């Protein structure tokens, strides 16, 4: 999954690393260039000192060793020279037997040259004319300590860059988290939305997020309104269709038609089929299904009314009870859930002797609902057949049939499953498993 935090961190690290390294390296370059300029001055002064040490003797020039800096005498001291005259040349004693690659042109050599004992030498050459003779003086000094220092400085610089990086990352993390708090809040609320604990988003969102929150709320409202409107329209359609059907159903029983029993039977059967079809399709069309509805099923608010209705429909001494966890909110549309539970409970009430019980429990991966009755039950061998032909079997039951048909439609939309087992009350147990919604992490 893509995380804003992570991509921000990656970007920041890349930029910081680049800038830090560039900064360390260029400052080192600049510093070294200044240093070499400085050293070039020193080396030039050295050549001048050597020039003075050359004295005119009887047979030409002669190097006055007394005037030489003692470091030119100590072997491998790091300070070396070579003086070239057309006919002879001098080397510093410190060079011992080494012969570095002296520069070929005047001025500071661009490249370091290899000296004795793995020294790296910064060399300088100057040409002078004295008494008509060309004197070429080359001096060199060990540059290794400087190089070592540079390495150390570079290392220190890198450590500093690293530390700065770390500090910035921490600060950035904090800042981003702060800035993202509304997003995190929105994420939690959307999760709550899917768990049925919330009807709309309700956060003080920053300007950037406000349109999103408003749009989501608007969509929720819109879905809810559309659902209500279409349900209302379906109700009207049902009314418009079923009232004439009721008239026809009554007309078919007219005594005048009793003289033609076959005609009457055919008419009645066709009417029955139309009625079933209309009820089934209207019921199916009413389902909200998978959408995020505006109104969820709040057990404590809906179940008492549902059970009251069941008691009203089944006017007999039935002990109806329900058990649901504290604060039980089922994240499915209120009317769909009423339809599902209503039909299953209605069936249970039809067959129960004295007791019907509903249990709703939350499981790790969703919800488990059990409807128990103490009626005759269904033999195990026939249960699959009941589920398979549930619709047909149910159609025979009097009154508002179609129960299992619509139950199957609802469960299909929710990816739920219905199982029939034996109840500990002695009758049938209808077991409904509903998987939790998995969108987001709700």
């Amino acid at each position: 999954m893509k995380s804003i935090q992570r991509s921000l961190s990656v970007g920041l690290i890349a930029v910081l690393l680049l800038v830090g390294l560039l900064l360390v390296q260029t400052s080192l370059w600049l510093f070294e260039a200044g240093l070499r300029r400085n050293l070039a001055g020193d080396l030039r002064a050295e050549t001048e000192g050597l020039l003075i040490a050359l004295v005119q003797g009887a047979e030409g020039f002669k190097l006055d060793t007394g005037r030489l800096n003692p470091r030119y005498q100590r072997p491998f001291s790091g300070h070396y020279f070579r003086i070239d005259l057309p006919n002879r040349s001098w080397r510093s004693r410190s060079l011992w037997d080494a012969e570095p690659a002296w520069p070929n042109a005047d001025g500071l050599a661009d490249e370091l040259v290899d000296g004795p004992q793995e020294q790296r030498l910064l060399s300088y050459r100057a040409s002078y004319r004295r008494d008509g003779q060309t004197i070429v003086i080359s001096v060199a000094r060990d540059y290794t300590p400087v190089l070592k220092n540079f390495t150390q400085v570079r290392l220190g610089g890198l450590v500093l860059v690293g530390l700065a990086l770390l500090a910035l990352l921490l600060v950035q993390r904090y800042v981003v988290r702060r800035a993202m708090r509304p997003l995190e809040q929105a994420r939690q609320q959307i999760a709550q939305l899917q768990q049925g604990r919330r009807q709309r988003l309700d956060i003080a969102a920053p300007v950037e997020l406000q349109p999103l929150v408003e749009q989501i709320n608007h969509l929720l409202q819109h879905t809810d309104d559309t659902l209500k409107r279409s349900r209302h329209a379906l109700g009207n359609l049902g009314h418009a269709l079923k009232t004439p059907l009721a008239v026809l159903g009554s007309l078919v029983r007219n005594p005048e038609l009793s003289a033609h029993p076959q005609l009457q039977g055919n008419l009645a059967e066709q009417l029955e089929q139309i009625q079933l079809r209309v009820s089934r399709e209207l019921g199916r069309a009413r389902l909200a299904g998978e959408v995020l509805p505006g109104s969820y099923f709040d057990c404590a608010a809906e179940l008492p009314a549902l059970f009251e209705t069941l008691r009203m429909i089944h006017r007999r001494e039935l002990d109806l009870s329900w058990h649901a966890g504290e604060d039980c909110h089922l994240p499915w549309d209120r009317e769909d859930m009423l339809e599902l539970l209503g039909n299953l409970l209605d069936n249970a009430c039809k067959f129960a002797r004295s007791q019907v019980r509903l249990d709703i429990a939350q499981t790790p991966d969703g919800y488990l609902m059990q409807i128990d009755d103490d009626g005759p039950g269904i033999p195990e061998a026939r249960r699959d057949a009941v589920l398979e032909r549930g619709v047909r079997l149910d159609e025979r039951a009097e009154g508002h049939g179609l129960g299992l048909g619509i139950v199957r439609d609802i469960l299909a939309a929710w990816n739920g499953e219905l199982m029939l087992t034996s109840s500990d009350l002695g009758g049938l147990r209808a077991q409904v498993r509903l998987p939790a919604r998995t969108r987001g992490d709700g």
Partner: protein
Amino acid sequence: MRLLLVEDNVPLADELIASLTRHGYACDWLADGRDADYQGGSEPYDLIVLDLGLPGMPGLDVLRAWRSRGVATPVLVLTARDSWAERIEGLKAGADDYLTKPFHPEELLLRIQALLRRAHGLANQPLLQAGGIALDETRQRCSKDGQDIELTAGEFRLLRYFMLHPGQLLSKTQLAEHLYDGETERDSNVIEVQINRLRGKLGRELIQTRRGQGYRFGGAA
């Protein structure tokens, strides 16, 4: 028993009225929600059959209005809206029973019968029993001491009303109000004649006359 039928579909209303009248109910019919709102509260109906899809005023609103004004008449809601959410809605509005369209006419009659008995605190048995008499409402005849007794439509209506109000003092006006619909000429002499016929068939002591006050069906007293 006097019923109010509120149904805007004329053919269905015709059918229902015919069927209800055949079964001894006096029926008033209204098609508009606003009329029903007024008349349901002002006339002494024993039961109201209310359709929910009404012109003028939605059936549920009518029902809520009645209940908020303290009208306690049993109401059987008749509707094409058969989802559980709508049934619960109807119950919350104050319905006593809920029958979804399309329905079998017999089903409606049975529901009305059961609802009337319940409203009078009687158990829902196949036969209505009071004062040593068992009344078969479907076949409109009664039996006493194991003997079947045929009844005319008028006698049946009167006896049923008495049997649903055993031991209560019923004035002639009250009887007339509950046995005839709003459009029938109420002639108290007809009631007197029918009471005498019932006495002839079931025994004189069954219905006592309180002079100036009315009649009492003796059984439970």
